[in-house]
């Protein structure tokens, strides 16, 4: 799940790109080029999100039940903005689309801003906690609250998560990371001098706020209290600097995390300072995958509650108490052996389709454009 999350955050460059179509260019043909460059990739991000959801459901059904059913509005807003995205590429250049290309581009903008921000906030709650209780006995009528196992205690149903400062920091960090990755993607993919130049500038404009917000979140989290699990009694308690301890207790995770961060920064710096360098997306992209994967391991490994409840510590979800049965997890493990095959044909398809960089000329000769 951590790896899937890492891949998802990397692929959010599509959303990042969507959020800056209008700021990166003022000319229609350039905007069209940007839309089409992203339009050849958006389905991978979307599919990864859907697979991430399905896999989370299959492996941690109690998380799915608690978070989706509780932080209802947070997930619903995320859902809305992805539904809007799903039609916007295909519809925007079609005659008869009623609302006009700009409305669909506005949808893409909304998806780009909110999609990344909300996902960042939701990941942040793995460290900051949410207001819920879990009572598995409810289904047998043991509680007075009806048969529902997971109950959200805040009437805002997830909207309250957006006013927590630490959550906001990670939300903004993911937003600016996605925009940085998108700029790196444009530098790599486009055969268009003006846009490439502007994209390099945008790497800087977005890379700096990304680093700042991410550092604030990271340092704050490392020194904050974390949700620890007593391996003997399964009791959950607050531990000072828990996540820092996790890094220290798992040196491999820490080393990989730091390497990931270095790779992200290297991709950014090289692209900003070297005019010839076009491979930033690969360094920063791979770095993003590794960094996010490690960050999520820190949220759940080493006797840590990965989805903590801030109102009732003992309701917090741990890998043990929220996962599927061993049988189902084994079945899923077998299925995941299929993943290399998927990666292989995706790689093959990208190669076949992207032998050359995308230019405005391609848009008139390719049979299907957005």
């Amino acid at each position, binding site marked *: 799940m951590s790896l899937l999350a890492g891949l998802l955050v990397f692929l959010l460059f599509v959303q990042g790109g969507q959020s800056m179509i209008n700021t990166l260019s003022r000319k229609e043909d350039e905007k069209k080029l940007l839309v089409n460059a992203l339009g050849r990739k958006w389905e991978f991000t979307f599919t990864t999100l859907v697979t991430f959801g399905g896999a989370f459901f299959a492996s941690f059904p109690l998380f799915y039940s608690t978070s989706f059913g509780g932080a209802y509005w947070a997930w619903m807003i995320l859902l809305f903005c992805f539904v809007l995205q799903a039609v916007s590429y295909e519809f925007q250049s079609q005659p*008869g*689309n009623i609302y006009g290309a700009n409305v669909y581009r506005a949808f893409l903008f909304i998806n780009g801003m909110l999609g990344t921000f909300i996902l960042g906030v939701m990941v942040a709650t793995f460290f900051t906690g949410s207001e819920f209780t879990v009572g598995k006995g409810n289904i047998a009528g043991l509680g007075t609250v009806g048969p529902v196992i997971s109950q959200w205690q805040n009437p805002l149903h997830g909207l309250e998560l957006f006013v927590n400062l630490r959550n906001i920091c990670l939300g903004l960090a993911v937003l600016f990371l996605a925009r940085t990755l998108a700029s790196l993607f444009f530098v790599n993919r486009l055969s268009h001098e003006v846009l490439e130049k502007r994209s390099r500038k945008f790497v800087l404009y977005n890379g700096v706020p990304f680093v700042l917000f991410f550092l604030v979140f990271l340092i704050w989290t490392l020194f904050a209290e974390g949700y620890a699990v007593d391996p003997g009694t399964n009791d959950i308690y607050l531990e000072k600097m828990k996540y820092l301890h996790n890094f220290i207790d798992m040196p491999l995770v820490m080393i990989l995390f730091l390497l990931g961060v270095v790779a992200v920064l290297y991709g950014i710096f090289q692209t900003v300072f070297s005019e010839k360098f076009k491979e930033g997306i690969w360094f920063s992209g791979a770095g993003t995958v590794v960094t996010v994967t490690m960050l999520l391991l820190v949220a759940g490994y080493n006797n840590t509650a990965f989805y903590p409840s801030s109102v009732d510590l003992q309701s917090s979800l741990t890998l043990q108490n929220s996962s599927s049965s061993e049988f189902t997890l084994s079945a899923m493990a077998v299925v995941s052996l299929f993943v290399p095959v998927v990666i292989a044909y*995706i790689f093959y398809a990208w190669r076949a389709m992207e032998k050359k960089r995308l230019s405005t000329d391609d848009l008139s000769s390719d049979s299907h454009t957005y």
Partner: protein
Amino acid sequence: MAIMETLYVKTGDEKWKNTTKFWQKIFGVNFAIGVATGIILEFQFGTNWSNYSWFVGDIFGAPLAIEGIIAFFLEATFISIMFFGWNRVSKRMHLTSTWLVFVGASLSAFWILVANAWMQYPIGMEFNPESVRNEMNDFWAVAFSPVAYNKFLHTTFSCWALGGAFVVGVSGWYLLKKRDIDFAVKSIKIGSLVGLVAFVMLAVTGDGSAYHVAQKQPMKLAAMEGLYKGKEGAGLVAIGMLNPAKTVYNDDVDPYIFKLEIPKLLSLLGYRNINAFVPGIADIVDGGYTLQDGTTALPFEERQARGRKAIQALADYQTAREEESDAINAGNSTAAAEAATAAANHETILRENYAHFGYGYLENGEDLIPNIPLTFYSFHLMVMIGMYYILFFMIVLYFIYRKSMSTTKWLHYVALWSIPLAYLAGQLGWVVAEVGRQPWTIQDILPVQAAASAVSAGNVITTFILFAVMFTGLLIAEVTIMVKQIKKGPDPVASDENMHTIHQ
């Protein structure tokens, strides 16, 4: 599209290529909406059915995850080659991609229908009172459940059927306008063949469906037929009108204003025996008839009592386990052993009564009855449309054979105005399947009221309205885009050949 493109690659006829490309454009517009609706389904299991997600997530989540890994990536990757790859990959690679899109879409349908079938006919799992959920113990039983397999075929053929009806209908419009004649006739050839095969197979798999429903969900069958009092050698209502005066399931009011019945057919379809007893709604609520396995059906009150016994046993089990762990912590081994024995006893009671678990959440017998008119009319209308289409496609193929399709004007009108019927039939089928199974989210185990999230009705209504507004807006856009595309028609062959040579 895959068949059309295969013909293009085999014959090298550019007209087939243009035909393929045109339908791919239409497909793309629909696909976008399909993607938009698919993600909603996934989210809503969590947001709106959170209890369900925990209670059976151990079984239900797996097909969704497998769908994502195996089917969605296949679709997403090769759809991109299908749309953008005409000038970028070889002919054969492109053809393979188009077929893989079809394979991916079908696999995706398979896994989501495995999940749906499991709700209608839960198998391959065991209840674990410790974790308070059902856990999978036989993956293959879930993946190859007879209900799933049949449902997959029925649903997939319904998609072919809609595709066939749509292609033939739109092509009928071109013939009416006397334009793109060759393209239209080519499309009709493929569309009507696919359509006829699909509708015949729909009848075959529909029969399979009815058989499974009779065995696993007798109430749904009774609702589909408006059958209140069961009988041996029951007939199938071909056409009928329900009596709105029938308000209580066990009053003496005749449920029909009129009906035309085919004798013995319902018994034959449901039980493969013309004299088999088909239980009616009253029989299922009140029990007392003999089941297939020779035992006597239990009345609702008894099943409710056993369900409550199971729920209470689960509660007692939980308490006993807590006492056990407290006793262990206090170092009192006698008390711990006693609590463990008590827990084991509660577990036995729970298992003995688990088949009735969901009945414990229901209040009275009427709760078992789905909306009868909706199920009844949906079912009958669906079947009628299916029969109509078999006839329709046979006529179309006859005119194609006689080579007079392009000049038979009345048939063009019929083809065009039949399109909505094909959409309607698909929707009606889902109404039968999903309304007919109420009140169960999981047959006999979890009714809807125990499956929903703890989110207030106001929140859900707000979301519903937002979705309704958004999708109405998108539907209008989708339809006008399609109409524009259709009016524009396929690209002329000559210019396309020019483009082709430039890129070679």
